[in-house]
Structure formats: C-alpha cells, structure tokens
C-alpha cells in the first residue's frame, strides 16, 4: 500500500476535530471529518477508509454504536476517543470491535503512535506469511486467507484478534507475559495495557473454546500472562 492512508476523524467538538485533522494532514494522511456517527457512517459507505478515529459521546448515534455498525461490514481499524476514562467503557468499546482506545485529553504524539501501530497491525495481516497454516488441536489458522477454522467451522476474527491468536498458537506451551504479548501484537509502543489482553483473550475464548469458562487452549497464568495449550 503506497497510497496515503485515509483517516476518518469523528468528533462533535469542532476544536478537537480540527486539531486531529490538522495534525494528520500535515503528516501526510488523507483526512476526512464527521461531527457525529451518522455523518461518519455516510462517509464510510462512500469512501475507502483505512482508519477511523471515533469520539464516543456524540449526538445522534454515538461512537460505540457507530463502531458496532462499522464492524458489521468491515474490519477497518478503529481507535476510540473518549472523555470517560472508565474501564467499563474501554471494555465495551473493545467488545464492539474497537482496536484501540485513547482517553481525552491526549497529546498528539500519543495519538500518532497509536495510529501507526494500528495501521502496522493491519498491514501485517496483509503480508504473506512463511507458512500457510498452523494447526493446534481443533484450531486451524489459515495465514494466507486470514481465516480460522475451529472444529471445522469458520469463525470471524478482527485483525487484532487474528494476530493475537496466531501469536499464541506459534508460541504453544510457552508462558507469555502481558508486556511481551502487547509488544508483539499491538506494537512496541504498548506494554502496560493488560486490560486489552483481558478483553481480547475473553473474546478469543468465546470464539474458539467449547466452554469459555473452562478453557482448553487459552490458559491464564495469574499475575504473569497467558499460555496456549495445543
């Protein structure tokens, strides 16, 4: 992908929207803006978007609902912006398919770092892998087509979920600390966001385990990290 990535910035507060847009524009992104979810969906349907930056609190269709609707058709990376720094909101956002999360106020460097990491992860998913498939137990991951079969059935995974599952499968049997997982899957800027892992591991278990409450594959190493058992 050599073309400029197109970023959709959605926020009802014009000063903020302008601040993000101007910073991205100056750094070579192609930026679109929307003042609410409705406008954002309209823009998403009509144009190719590589990344969505969404404020949660907006009139007429908030960021979470917008995320849900985008996820119905696309795996485009989504970064959520919110003034609410609460865990519950983050989890809700991740549940609905957001890839990353930023709490207001934030600095421009922070935002740019997240944007780069999210785009990188999306790009990894598109690169050609060394091997075509990895099979562990009943789980078979097709690295070329970005598809995962569990007990013969195809399951839906976001790019981050896919990357996380493949990383776990490649390190079967090893205890993987939180920081290591975050830096490998999310990018080198990450490391302290253990709650991301909790949300994603939960989502993966829902999708691959037969009994998510008593997982067979994704094991929690309390206080350390996670382990994948083939």
């Amino acid at each position, binding site marked *: 992908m050599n073309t400029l990535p197109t970023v959709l910035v959605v926020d009802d*507060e014009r*000063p903020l929207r302008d601040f993000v847009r101007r910073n991205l524009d100056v750094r070579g992104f192609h930026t679109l803006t929307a003042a609410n979810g409705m406008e954002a969906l309209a823009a998403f349907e009509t144009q190719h978007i590589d990344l969505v930056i969404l404020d949660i609190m907006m009139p007429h269709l*908030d960021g979470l609902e917008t995320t849900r609707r985008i996820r119905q058709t696309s795996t485009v990376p989504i970064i959520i912006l919110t*003034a609410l*720094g609460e865990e519950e909101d983050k989890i809700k956002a991740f549940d609905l398919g957001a890839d990353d999360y930023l709490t*207001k106020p934030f600095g421009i460097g922070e935002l740019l770092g997240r944007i780069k990491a999210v785009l990188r992860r999306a790009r990894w998913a598109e690169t050609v892998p060394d091997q075509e498939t990895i099979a562990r137990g009943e789980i078979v991951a097709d690295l070329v087509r970005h598809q995962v079969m569990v007990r013969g059935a195809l399951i839906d995974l976001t790019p981050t979920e896919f990357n996380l599952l493949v990383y776990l499968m490649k390190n079967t049997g090893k205890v993987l600390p939180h920081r290591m997982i975050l830096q490998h899957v999310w990018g080198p800027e990450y490391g302290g966001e253990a709650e991301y892992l909790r949300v994603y591991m939960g989502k993966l278990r829902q999708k691959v385990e037969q009994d998510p409450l008593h997982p067979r594959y994704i094991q929690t190493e309390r206080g350390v990290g996670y382990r994948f058992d083939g």
Partner: protein
Amino acid sequence: MAFKTRFYSLFVPHRDMGLQLLALYLLLIIPVLIAIFIFDQVAGQQIQLEVKASDLSLARAIAKEADYRILSALESVRALSEYQVVRIADRQGMETVFSIFSTTRADINLVYRLDVRGFMFYHYPVGPGSTVGTDFSFRNYFTAAQDSNTPLISEGRISPTTNQAVATAVMPIRNKDGKFDGVVATNIRLESLSATLREILAEHTPEEGFEIFIIDHVGQVIAHPVSARLLIHVEDMMPGLSQPALRGVSESKTMADPSGKLYLATYAPVPSAGWSVIIRRPEQAAFSQQILYHRISLGAIGTFTVIGLMFWLVLSRRVIYPLEKLAGISRKIGENEPIEPLDRKFLERASRRLDQMGKLITSLLRMERSIAERMHEQAVLLETSQAVVSSLDSQVVLNRILEQVERLMKVEKVALVALDEKSGVFRVRASRGLSSNYTGQMTIQPDEPLSVTMRAIRVGEPVQVSDTETDPTFSAQRPRARAENYRSLLAVPLKTQYTPPSALLVYRPDPHEYSENEIKLVASFANHATMAIENAALFTRSDMRLTEQTRRIEALIQSMQDGLILGDLRGNVVYANRRISELAALTPGELRGTPVTRVMARILSRAGDHDPARARVESALYEKNPAQVEFVVTMGGHNIALRLQTFDVNDTRGVSIGQGLILQDVTTDREVDRMKSSLISTVSHELRTPLAAIKGYATTLLADDVEWDRNSQREFLQIISSESDRLSELVNNLLDLSRIEAGSLKLQYTECDVTELVTHAARRGHLQPSNQFNMQIAPDIATIWADQLRMETILRNLIENAVKYAGNDAKIWVRVVRSGGNVVFRVIDNGPGITAEKSLLIFQPFHRLDESLSRASSGAGLGLAISQGFVRAHGGDIWVEPSESGACFAFSIPIKAD
C-alpha cells in the same frame, strides 16, 4: 420459755380442765389432810404419854403406899426384936407385946417367934390352928434371916396359921454375942393391900379396864383386887412382864397376854421389898381417846376424799364433759364440718339447762346458725364472683348474679335497672321473675322524684319500701305493684364508674323490712353486678381499641411500599402485604399458606436475569442468618430494583417463630447511585472536553516534527485560550451548582435590561450560523430586578440546550411576557421535543434525557439543573410547557418593587 412451758405441763396437765380442777382441789385439801394427820399423830402421842404418865403415877403411888407398909412392917418387926421379952422368948411377955402390936396394926394378922431352929415358938393371936412347935426352918426367909442383921420380907404365901395370903416381915434376933437366936416375924396380910387396890380401882370406871396388882420379888401376884388371882405367877397373866417389872424401874409397856390381847402395862417398884406394882389395862381402853381422835381424823380424811370425789364427778359430768363436747363441736363448726346427731342431741339437751352452760350452748347454737348463714352467703357470693369472671358477656353474668340474689334472698323477683344512654331513661337491663309486660314498659325518667330506684341512685344509698300499700311515697306506683304482685321493694344503687348509673331491685310479695345485713348482702351483689358490667364494658372498649390498633397497623403494613412476608417455621406464608400481592400477582387469599419460596419464584419470574437472581434468593431464604439480595424485576414496563432482606422472627422469649422477608423497592436508591456516578462522569466529561482541545493544541505546538506557520500558531493559542475560559466557566457553574445544592447561593440584584439579557445570552449560547434566533419581548417589560449574570446563565443554558437538541438548523425563539406578578421567559425550539414523563425529571441534576443524546450534549445535565437553581433562588419557577412540536422551556421571575 418453751422449756418452761413443757416443764410446767409435765406436772400440771393444764390442757385438761378436769385435771386442773382436781389438782387445785388436791392443792387445797392436802395441807388440811396433812394437818389432820399431824394432829392425829401428835395428839395420839400426847394422849399416850398422858395415859402412861397417869398410870405410872398411880403405880408409883401404890408402890409408895406398899413400900410404906412394908417398911413400917419391917420397922415393926425390928422394933419388936428390941423387946427383951421377944429376945428371950418370954411367952407371956410376948403375948402382951404382940397383942398390943396386933391391935395397932390391922394389916398384920400374925406376929410370931421362931426359935433358933426354926420352930414356932409362939404366935399371936393364938388361934385354933396353932402351929407352935411346927418347924418353919425350911422357909426361905428363915434361911435368909440367919445371915442378916436387918429385917427382911418374904415372898407371898399362904399362911398355914391363918390360912391367908401373907408376906412375912422377918427380923433376925441375935443374942448379946451376936449369935443368931431365931426370928421375930409378922405376917402382913396381903388382903389388906388388895383392899387398898380395890379402893383405888373403885375410883375408876370398869370401862377403863384397870387391873392393878402387886407382885413380889419372885413374880407372884401378892395383891390383887380379885382374891382369886392372888399368888398366881405374873408370867401366867402376862408373859415376859416379870423380868422388866422386877428390874426396879418404873415404866409403861405395851404387852400381850397369853390370849394375845394387848395391854398397856405400867409398873413401879416397891424398893423395900423388891416388889413391883403393876397396872395394866387393855390398850383400847387405855388409848380410847386417842383412838377416838384417830377415828375422827380418819373420818375427816374420808369425808374430804369422798366430797372431793363427788365434787370432781359432778364437775366433770356437768361442766368438763359439756365443755369438752362443746370444744369439739365448736371446732367442727369452725371447720364447717357437720355436727353428728348424737352431738346435736347433746346440744339440744344441754341448751335446756338454765345455768351458764345452757346459755353458752344456746349462744353457740345461735352462732352456728349465723356462721352457717354467713357461709352460705359467702358461698353464694363466691359463686357470684366466679360468675362475674366466668364470662365477658355482661348479660350472661348479670342473669347469673340475679339468680344468686334470688336464691340467697329467697325472693322471686329481681331486676337490674340501668340508664339507657341513647334514650336518656332508665330501663330494665336484666330481670328474673318479673313479667315481660312489666319489664318492657318500665321506663324511669332520671329526675322522677318519687321513684325508689331514682332515689337510691341519687342518694347513692339503698332505699326500701317495706310495704307498698302503706308507704305514702309509693302511692303512684301502687297499681303497678299490685299488678306485679309485690308488697315490698329494695333498690340498691350500683357504684359504677365507667358505665351508666344502675340499680339492683329486689321485690317481695309480702311486706318486709330489710335488715341491715340483708341490705349489705344485696349491696355486695350490687358490687358484683357493677364489676361484671364494668368488666364487660372495659373489655369491649379494650377489644375495640385493640381491633382499632390492629387495623391501623394492618393498614400501615398494607400501605407500605415495601413488600412484607411473614413465613411460619414450615416456610408457608402467614402474612403478606399488598405489595407482595402485586409483585407475586396473587390475591391475599391465595398467598396465605403458599410456600414462601413459591411466592418468591413468582416474583422472580419478572426478573430479566432470573436464573442467577433466583439462586441468590433461594440461598437467602434457606440461610438461617439475615441475608440481603438485590435483583431487578420488570413490572408494568418499569424496572424495579428490589432488595430482599430476610430476618428471623422471634417471639418475646427469643424463640424463632418464623422468617420475615422484606422486599424493599430500591429503584430510587439505585437511581440516586446511578446519578452519583453519572455526576462524576458528566463532570469528568464536561471538564475533559475543553481540556482535550487545550492539550491537543498545546502538544501540536510542541511537536518537533512539524513547523507551524505563525497564523496557525496564533489560531491554536486562541483556541487554547477560549477553551480555558470555557473550562473556567464550567468550574464556576459547578461551584454555583454546589452552592444551590447547599442553599448558600447569594444573588446580586440589579436593574437588568431584559433585551440586553437575552441578547447577551444568545451571543454566548453557541448559536450556530445556521440557527435562526428570534426574540419577542413584551413592551411593558423593559427592565427586571434580578441578578444579571445568573439571569444570563439561565437563558444561555436554555438556548444552548435548544441548539444542542434541536440541531444546527433549528429555529429558536425567546419570548418574554408579564403574567400576574411575574415575568415569564420562554425558550422554544422546533427540535424533537420532550415527552411529558421526562419533563418532570429533566431538572434533576445530571439527569440525561437520553443516554446517547446527553452524551452528545456537553453540559446538558448541568445546565438545566443550574438554571433551575438560579430561577428558584430568584423566587421563581421553571418548567417545561407542553408543545406540539419542539421543546418549550419556561421560567418565571417575580417582579420586585423597589
């Protein structure tokens, strides 16, 4: 003390009156008897002594006499021996001497001279039976005389010469050279002694039984009034007497004769001859006086004894026995035991006696009768009081009381009259034996002057009419009395306190003067009746009060917003209130007896996530300790948060009688909780929004990788500045809000220009260029007395709200009119509007109309709350007006005259 009593009772059985009297009698009589006895003894001895002394003196006197005679005889013979003629035994001479001698001495019947050989030489008188020449040397006295120089006396013997009993006085005769030459002797006629004795004896009566005699030194009787007894040995008459009698002392002695008869023997010695005078007489005769006295004493003792015996007998028959009997009977009476027929007969017999005993028994019988009567009365009264407490139905109790009055007073008609409070007249409340006609018609006005009942009630004392026919006050009622057939009447008032005044009436068919006792008795029945009536009344009252109280508590529990269930120990519903009925959709009837778990299951079926909630509820129900579970149910489209609390229900002794459940509606609490967290997130959001812009632009300016042109830099700094202002204002609003909440907001009143107010507010209200803004101010309102800045904030918040909710293209109107004493501002938009339900909640702090909407509208939650606070601080009101399209917020500010 006890010891003393016991000790005393050992000797004086004072519990028995008979013995007591006997003891008393003995106490009196014994000294008398002792005195008699002592007298008997002393007198007896005295008499004995006297008798003995008199006998002794008599004996001594006789002995003296005899002694004298003997001495004179001895002197005579000695004198004779002096005679020469005697000495030489000159017969002729001796005849002269002897004859002279004989004539002088009548008691001598023979004088004689024995020669040296003991032959009778001569004797005078010479009688026919002369013994001259006869040898008398064998005679003891002759032998004795041979060795003696003094005269001596012989034992008694029968003289052969005179043939008479004699004793011989002998004088030995010695010649010149002292050679024994025979004796001269005289025979003392013992007969003469006997004659003396006879004379003495003649002085005593034959009854005295005197027997006086003299014995010689060998014990022969030598003098005795009865000649036949002469020369009998004394031992033949009285064995054992000769020895003491011849001892030479004089004394008295009681001895027995050979036949065993007792004699008092007194003897006195005749010293010259060694004889003894003996007086003897039978003891009986000797001590006849003593014996007499003795007999008298015995008689006296016997008499006393017999009298005592008789006295005691009479006493015990006539006094003690009846007393004992009476004691027994009175004990029986006291213990209320029946008196046996025998005792009864005794009492009847004894009561006929005229003495004190008779009176005592009569009064005892009277007492018995009165005790029996009293007992009967008491028994009836007791029954009555039992009747009073046996039932709380006053009618039943009253009937029972009247029945008892009837029985005890032996009357047939009784009635209880009480004031009927409704009609204000006295009526029969209960009666017996009276015709229904009489009781039905009887009404007494409280102020009727002549009514017996009213008089009794007014005076508070019993009133009686002893004869209805003669009592002048009764004339008016007389026909009624005749019809009802009674002649006397007693009315006793009841001392009521809590119930209407009443009286007890007793009717008799005959004229009767009620005694004080009878009246007292009726009065005590009246007291019982009072008690019964008052008990019943008080019970009814307290019952009503209890019912009332129960109803109130019931109503309270029923009206509670919280659900309440009381389950018994088996877990079934004993009681549940209305709220539970609603929640479980069961009628109260269906609820009772239903297991508590089923009721809870029905309530839980309304819960969305009902499975986990049910598990928690069930564990709370089975938990012994109080537990608390919260769950949410949906009812009528609303979510209701319920908090279940279980607790043990204990009785007053702390024993568990079941389980209590309270279902508390905590929806409001949860709402408040939610609002609290909402406040925090809203404030956080409100503050972070301008902060985000500030930080964003500040970091943009600080970023190294991009060089911004000067215009851009200025623009960014401008934004930072304005966002800082926004932040500051926000903080001010928050402070105002907290002041409003605390009630400490102070307004700065000034004269405000209304047009200016609205214009300023609209300018700051983030109106978008596409918005249409209209302002309509009534001409009569140019200025208003208010806090300018706060008024601007109110208006701006409303305008801002309109912009946010109605959107950028909305039309917004501000209209100001005067209404009464107020100025009313209205901010109207053409947006989506507000539903009637939400318009009520909208002014609560941080209430968000719609989660998504409010999140989008920064400051919306705070804005309206602040506006409301400011309006109220001005003394006005704010509200949402219903509108066909869009929203219309209105607020009023009172017009203040300066």
